[in-house]
């Protein structure tokens, strides 16, 4: 089977956590895939691709986002682009250089190649969640972050990446569909992310309390991205992707302690976290960044205020629903964590 328009799908970021599962879901669904890799990346580093490479259902193209010629070749014969690649660490400038500057080259090359669908895998980080009241609903109706520079470098770069994609859609006709996954988890990608808590000076600080987590299991998320690539008539639309039956932070931590490791933790209530963030921001400004403002009240509001999340539009328009139930998905992820750590995994 090929995609709806008769060609291969191109997947960027194909060797990443989500990218590998994306390629697998496409191949399992009968599609032909071209994985875009950085120059020098050996496809043999992904052993599960060997059979598909041999059969020709999976192709590999090496291209740098800074090389328009390589991108042109990589896009030859491609009708649908699934753009997953993004920088996840490093300074804000480095992430913008990789994620935004690189993406612009891909937008231009895709237009030149006449692709019929460009799916940008964005992030919940671009949503202006700070401005949504406690208990409010996060969905496609919430405007994009107005002050992305007040969030973390990743959210800032993803915001600029998506904003630029919309500019290309409006002004140049890029056939854009945006998917904004929540926190993607699964084997190989820890469920114990910052929305639940973080380690500091040997302590696990539980920051999430009773907040609902906007989780999406990696295979479910990959399914939604496939649909965004092939369902007709959805250009110019945005889809928030979270699974059903979302757990709270406390519920996931409880299961982690029961099924992986009985870690000790210190609960930090929202009001205390917000006060501490205020002190962090004040101290950083007062001392000319002697300590960086890792926490600010603005960031705390976006992450831990306590929101609700909707996947109604994705289910209705993408004809998608999470195939792996949340309870099972968490179990799979926790078993993988336990197996990788011999039951001694620290969060």
């Amino acid at each position: 089977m090929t995609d709806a328009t008769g060609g291969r799908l191109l997947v960027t970021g194909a060797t990443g956590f989500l990218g590998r599962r994306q390629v697998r879901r496409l191949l399992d669904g009968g599609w032909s895939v071209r994985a875009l890799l950085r120059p020098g990346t050996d496809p043999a580093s992904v052993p599960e691709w060997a059979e598909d490479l041999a059969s020709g259902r999976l192709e590999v193209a090496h291209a740098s986002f800074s090389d328009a010629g390589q991108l042109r070749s990589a896009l030859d014969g491609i009708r649908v682009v699934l753009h997953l690649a993004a920088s996840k660490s490093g300074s804000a400038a480095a992430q913008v250089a990789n994620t935004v500057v690189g993406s612009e080259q891909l937008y231009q090359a895709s237009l030149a190649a006449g692709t019929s669908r460009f799916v940008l895998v964005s992030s919940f980080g671009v949503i202006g969640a700070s401005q949504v009241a406690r208990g409010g609903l996060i969905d496609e109706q919430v405007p994009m972050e107005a002050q992305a520079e007040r969030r973390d470098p990743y959210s800032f770069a993803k915001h600029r990446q998506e904003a630029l994609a919309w500019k290309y859609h409006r002004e140049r006709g890029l056939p854009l569909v945006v998917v904004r996954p929540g926190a993607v988890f699964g084997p190989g990608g820890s469920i114990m992310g910052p929305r639940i808590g973080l380690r500091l000076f040997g302590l696990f600080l539980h920051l999430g309390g009773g907040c609902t987590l906007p989780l999406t299991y990696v295979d479910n998320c990959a399914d939604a991205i496939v649909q965004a690539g092939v369902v007709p008539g959805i250009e110019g639309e945005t889809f928030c992707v979270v699974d059903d039956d979302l757990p709270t932070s406390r519920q996931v931590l409880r299961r982690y302690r029961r099924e992986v490791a009985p870690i000790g933790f210190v609960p930090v209530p929202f009001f205390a976290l917000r006060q501490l963030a205020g002190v962090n921001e004040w101290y950083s400004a007062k001392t000319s960044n002697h300590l960086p403002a890792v926490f600010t009240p603005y960031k705390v509001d976006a992450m831990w205020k306590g929101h609700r999340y909707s996947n109604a539009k994705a289910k209705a328009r993408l004809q998608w629903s999470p195939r792996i139930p949340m309870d099972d998905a968490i179990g799979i992820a926790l078993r993988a964590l336990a197996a990788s750590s011999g039951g001694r995994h620290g969060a």
Partner: protein
Amino acid sequence: MKVAIVGCGQFADAHIQEVRRIPGATVVAVCDLNPHMAEQAATRLQVPGRYTDLSNMLDEARPDVVHVTTPPASHLAIGRMLAARGVHAYIEKPFTSTLAEAEELVDLAMRAGVLLCVGHSYAFDSAFLRLREQHAAGALGDVVDVQASMGYNLAGPFGAAMMGDPTHWVHQLPGGLPHNNISHPVSLVMPFLVDEHPAVVSRGMRLRRERYHDIRDAFFDELRVTIAGARTTASIRFTCAARPVQLFCTVTGSAAQATASLDGRSLHLTTGAPLPGPFARVQWTYRAHQQTRRELWRHVKGLAQARLHFFEGLHELVSRFYLAIDGRGEMPIPMPEAVRAARLIEQIFSACQATGATS
């Protein structure tokens, strides 16, 4: 002092933050060929002016000094434009790609009557400045030997970005990655080397696994350099394999030895132990312990008083440079020193290539 930044990569943030800590200095504009890079720096760091054309920035923002944080291959062209406009420049390391460019750049500045400061900021970290004070005070005696060692993490943020992109500008430098970093240890040994043309022996090795089969596999990840002057020797080690990753400098004199750790921002002076026999062992260790205690207390106070900023050396160097521009101080690094460093760096890499030494 009106300050502008050209080149909005990740080190521009440090420049903007440190300039803002200097009384009377204001960052008025940023410039980058890529509009997204200029925008991100201006927005995040709240800089009023953003440009993609250097000439326009100079016309409109009219800075007194420009910090050049672009790749080194562009430094000569940018420096030429700044000199022609009578604008002073702080130029990040490496000063230029070649010695010839360094000579031309300094010559242009001198003829234009502007000041250029090479970004050897680690040489102005307080630990190294204290080491130099000890030397100036005669505590070390005559310098016999200097060692500087720099570690590098190829998996760090910059290393990963460079290794992920065969077109990254670092790979275009004659000496590749070590060329981009050797300025740091060179700047630490240079104050103690008075010879204009010391003998240089350099050996490079590649300890990492060949992986890409392109230019990314080409550079040396280990470098050992021996420099011999008439009365002083020096050695420089650049290493990607050694852990912990650190930068330090040890000066051995006729009276004592001192080691400045740029990571610990500490100074340790070794003066020996005059007590006899086994008592010397105790005294030697006791003296080391006393120094460690003093350094610890210094840092505890520094932490409490918010004086342990990461880019302290950059702040100090830029502060002194601005005083020199104002005519209230000497140039912290005289311009000919930038050429001397470029000459030494060129010697290091030409010697390294000449031996063709690889593992």
